[in-house]
């Protein structure tokens, strides 16, 4: 059970949401709630005083193609998104996260902005050079600020957001879902688990794009690795591993095993894209 006394706020607009955040010290945005419900129960350090339920903000629920892009609201559940046919790679990646009935609640924005490190939904969005629309409290008493920025510009291991900044939606350029793609994911044992390594790759016509999570405790994409794979394919594996930097070793898997999985996945991915 969640023992803390929590205030619940349900704004109808993005502006109300950031306003609520300003008025309630220590408030957290609540979307699917799958992480908040567990962290509030289990983690003594997780301080939960107020939840701002952002699921009814219309802009966070868009699911449409317009203006040359696929716009996906941050409050859409992973199941809702994965049932669409607009972005097959995204569907494949989302289907690996948690389990089906959790995905019926877990949202796209929550997966990217949450505390858990894997953030696998970021992989296809990073590969697609998606943009992200956010709203943040204005400085002092000025009105909230909306910004649409490239995801990669504000993604460094996690979404780098200002205090109180709320993700509203993601925008995927329409050519990206058309690219050939590949996705591999391995866990310690059963499928319903955090990934040891999860790799997503596309070929954008000009070259290979590669993103990975699990190998590091965060999603990773870099131009350097894309360039290496585009130029030399599987022959670039040693250089790619070097460029990826130190990989993770933990109670789930050793470093050597993660490296082996990563190599297998990159090789298989390159074959899929060829």
């Amino acid at each position, binding site marked *: 059970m969640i023992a803390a*006394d*929590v*205030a619940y706020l349900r704004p109808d607009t993005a502006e109300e949401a950031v306003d609520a955040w300003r008025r309630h010290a220590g408030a957290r945005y609540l979307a699917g709630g799958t992480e908040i419900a567990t962290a509030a129960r289990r983690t003594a350090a997780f301080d939960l005083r107020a939840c701002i339920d952002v699921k009814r903000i219309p802009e966070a629920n868009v699911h449409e193609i317009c203006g040359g892009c696929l716009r996906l609201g941050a409050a859409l559940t992973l199941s809702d998104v994965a049932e669409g046919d607009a972005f097959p790679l995204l569907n494949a990646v989302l289907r690996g996260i948690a389990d*089906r*009935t959790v995905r019926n*609640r877990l949202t796209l924005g929550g997966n990217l902005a949450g505390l858990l490190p894997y953030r696998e939904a970021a992989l296809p969005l990073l590969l697609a050079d998606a943009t992200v629309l956010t709203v943040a409290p204005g400085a002092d008493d000025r009105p909230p600020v909306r910004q649409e920025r490239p995801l990669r510009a504000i993604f460094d291991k996690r979404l780098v957001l200002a205090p109180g900044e709320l993700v509203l939606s993601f925008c995927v350029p329409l050519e990206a879902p058309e690219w050939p793609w590949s996705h591999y994911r391995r866990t310690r044992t059963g499928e319903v688990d955090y990934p040891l390594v999860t790799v997503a790759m596309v070929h954008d016509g000009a070259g290979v794009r590669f993103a990975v999570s699990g190998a590091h405790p965060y999603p990773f994409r870099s131009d350097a690795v894309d360039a290496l794979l585009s130029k030399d394919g599987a022959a670039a594996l040693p250089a790619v591993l070097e460029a990826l930097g130190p990989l993770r070793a933990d109670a789930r898997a050793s470093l050597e095993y993660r490296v082996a999985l990563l190599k297998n996945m990159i090789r298989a991915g390159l074959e899929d894209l060829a």
Partner: protein
Amino acid sequence: MKELSGIVEIVLRINGEERRAAVRPGDTLLRVLREKLGLTGAKCGCENGDCGACTVLLDGKPVKSCMLLAVECEDAAVTTIEGLRDHPVQQAFAEENGFQCGFCTPGMILNAAALVEAHPESDDATDREWMQSNLCRCTGYEGIRNALAAARRKAAAP
């Protein structure tokens, strides 16, 4: 904007009935069902979203009631196991021994009922994707698989 704190009265639409309850905003739907409304069919198997014993239907979709707040469910239709009566999936679980201890069964049946409704035709990959959400420690899943098949046969029969 709705703002709730302290003890609040909410109205939930559960199994087609309006149910009122005094809750704390931090109360999960699971705890409110069990402790405020006497609907103990949903079980506290882990309260961590891992086991599925607390599964209910929210607007027809199976969700884990330990992972959502009761106050989030106002305006939604909640179906608990107590709301299913002589459903083909229930009959099939009984006939095919889709349970032993019965503790996972309410959640398992609600998930299965939603699955059979969404996918009347059997498809191993889809069944697996859906049913992996619920743990059973007794049956080894054989009886549950057989129950799914039997429920689909029942649903398809005129």
